[in-house]
C-alpha cells in the first residue's frame, strides 16, 4: 500500500489533515498523519523513515508561511528525499503563487478536492475548469501500450504460432454468407449508400443491395422489402433523438475516477439494454463515475439472423439492435476519452458487426474468433 505523509505545519489547525487522512484511507492509501505544530525537521525525519510517495502539508495561519514552508522544501532537497517523494501544499494561507515560488510540486487551494489530490498522487496531469476548481484532465487510455505479442516462454509462443497457422490454413478460401455480407456492407459504406437510402443509385450500387438481400433471411428481407419490423422492435422518433441531444447538451459529466493508483486496471461497463437511448443514459452514468470504457453487447436475435437492420431502432428486450445509426448515436453521446468496445457476439453477423463498429468509430472489438470460425464451418457443412 502506498504511503502518504500528512503534516499540519501549523500550531493548531489540523482539520484538513484529519479529513484528508480519512479520504486517502478510503482511496486505498496508507495515510500517516502527524500532530499539529510539528517542525519541518520532524517531517523530514519521519519521511526518511516511512518513505512515502508524497508529503502533503497544510498551513492555515498566515504568518511566517514562506519561512516555514521554504525550510521544509530546502530540507527535502538536502536530504535527497525529493528523488522519491513529491511535495504538495494546501490550506487557507496558501495561494497557487506561494506554492509554486517555494518549490512545491503541487499546490491545492480552496475546498479539499480529492480528484485533484488523487491525480497528483497518481502522477496524472491536473487541469483547471472555468469555475476555478481543479480537475484531472481525462485522457483516452492506450490499452495496448507496453504490450507485445512476444512470449517469455518460447515453447508456448511456438505452439501458439503453430495453432494460429493451422487455424489460418483451415479457414483459407472458406467463406460464409456473414463474411460476404460484411464485404458488401463495406462496399456500400464506401459508396455512401445503404439498403434503405432513398436516393437514386447506380446499377452497380443496386447490385450491391440485391446481393446483400439475397444473403439475408426472411426476417431481414421482410424489413427491407415490406417495412416489417421484427417483434419487439420499434423506430425511434426524430423527437426522441432530438430530446436526447438536448438532454446531453444540458448535462455535462464531471468525473469521479474509480482508479486510485497507477494506470491499471482499466474499468469497463457493459451496456445493451435494447434501446440506444437507455444505453446512452447508462453510459453517461458510468462515465460520471469514472469508467475508462464501455462495451456494446448484443446477445439477442440479431446474432441469429442472417443480415442486419438499418436505422434508429429500439428493442424492448436485451441486446441493442446493431445498426450503423444506433452505433453512431451511441458513439456521439460518449465523452472523447471513453474507450468503446463493440463486441462481435459470436453468431451470424460477427464480420459485419466489425465493419459497422469500425465505421462508427469503435476503439476496440471483441471477437471469439475460434468459436465464430467453428460456427461458420458448421453452417457451411449444413
Amino acid at each position, binding site marked *: 500500500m502506498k504511503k502518504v505523509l500528512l503534516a499540519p505545519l501549523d500550531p493548531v489547525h489540523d482539520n484538513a489533515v484529519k479529513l484528508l487522512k480519512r479520504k486517502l484511507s478510503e482511496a486505498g492509501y496508507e495515510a500517516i498523519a502527524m500532530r499539529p505544530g510539528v517542525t519541518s525537521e520532524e517531517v523530514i525525519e519521519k519521511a526518511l523513515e516511512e518513505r512515502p510517495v508524497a508529503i502533503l502539508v497544510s498551513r492555515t495561519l498566515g504568518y511566517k508561511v514562506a519561512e516555514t514552508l521554504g525550510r521544509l522544501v530546502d530540507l527535502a532537497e538536502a536530504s535527497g528525499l525529493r528523488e522519491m517523494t513529491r511535495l504538495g501544499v494546501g490550506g487557507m494561507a496558501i495561494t497557487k503563487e506561494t506554492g509554486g515560488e517555494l518549490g512545491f510540486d503541487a499546490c491545492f487551494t480552496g475546498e479539499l478536492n480529492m480528484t485533484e489530490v488523487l491525480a497528483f498522487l497518481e502522477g496524472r496531469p491536473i487541469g483547471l475548469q472555468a469555475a476555478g476548481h481543479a480537475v484531472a484532465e481525462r485522457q483516452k487510455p492506450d490499452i495496448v501500450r507496453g504490450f507485445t505479442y512476444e512470449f517469455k516462454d518460447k515453447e508456448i509462443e511456438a505452439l501458439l504460432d503453430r495453432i494460429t497457422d493451422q487455424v489460418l490454413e483451415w479457414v483459407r478460401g472458406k467463406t460464409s454468407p456473414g463474411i460476404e455480407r460484411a464485404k458488401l456492407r463495406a462496399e456500400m459504406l464506401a459508396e455512401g449508400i445503404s439498403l434503405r437510402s432513398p436516393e437514386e443509385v447506380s446499377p452497380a450500387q443496386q447490385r450491391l443491395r440485391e446481393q446483400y438481400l439475397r444473403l439475408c433471411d426472411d426476417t431481414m428481407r421482410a424489413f427491407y422489402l415490406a417495412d416489417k419490423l421484427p417483434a*419487439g422492435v*420499434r423506430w425511434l422518433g426524430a423527437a*426522441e433523438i432530438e*430530446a*436526447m441531444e*438536448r*438532454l446531453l447538451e*444540458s448535462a455535462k459529466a464531471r468525473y469521479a475516477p474509480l482508479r486510485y493508483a497507477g494506470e491499471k486496471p482499466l474499468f469497463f461497463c457493459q451496456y445493451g*439494454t*435494447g*434501446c440506444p*437511448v*437507455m444505453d446512452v*443514459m447508462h453510459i453517461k*452514468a458510468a462515465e460520471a463515475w469514472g469508467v475508462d470504457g464501455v462495451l456494446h453487447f448484443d446477445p439477442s436475435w440479431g446474432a441469429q439472423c442472417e443480415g442486419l437492420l438499418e436505422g434508429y431502432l*429500439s*428493442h*424492448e*428486450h*436485451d441486446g441493442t439492435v446493431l445498426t450503423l445509426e444506433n452505433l453512431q448515436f451511441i458513439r456521439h453521446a460518449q465523452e472523447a476519452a471513453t474507450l468503446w468496445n463493440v463486441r462481435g457476439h459470436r453468431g451470424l453477423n460477427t464480420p459485419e458487426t466489425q465493419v459497422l463498429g469500425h465505421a462508427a468509430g469503435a476503439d476496440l472489438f471483441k471477437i471469439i474468433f475460434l468459436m465464430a470460425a467453428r460456427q461458420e464451418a458448421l453452417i457451411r457443412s449444413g
Partner: protein
Amino acid sequence: MQKALDRVVDAIDIETFLYAADEEEARTLAEKLAAELNLPYGDVVFFEYKGMGARVRIRSYIHRPGDHYRWLERESLE
C-alpha cells in the same frame, strides 16, 4: 411540475426484510409487495431466507427499454 416517478430512468429497487414463516411464504410476499405498492413489473432480484424471514430486493421497472421515457419528454428537459 413533473412527478418524481417520471424521472426514474429505468427501475426502482425496494430492499426490505419480510417476516415470514418459511421461504415459500417469503417468496409469495415479495412478489405481492410491488403490486400492493402499485409498482409495475416487480422482479425479485435478490432473496435470502434466514431465521425469521427473508431479505429481498424487488426491482420494479418504471421505464423498460423500448418504452417512451417520460424523463425524455419536453417538460423534463425545460
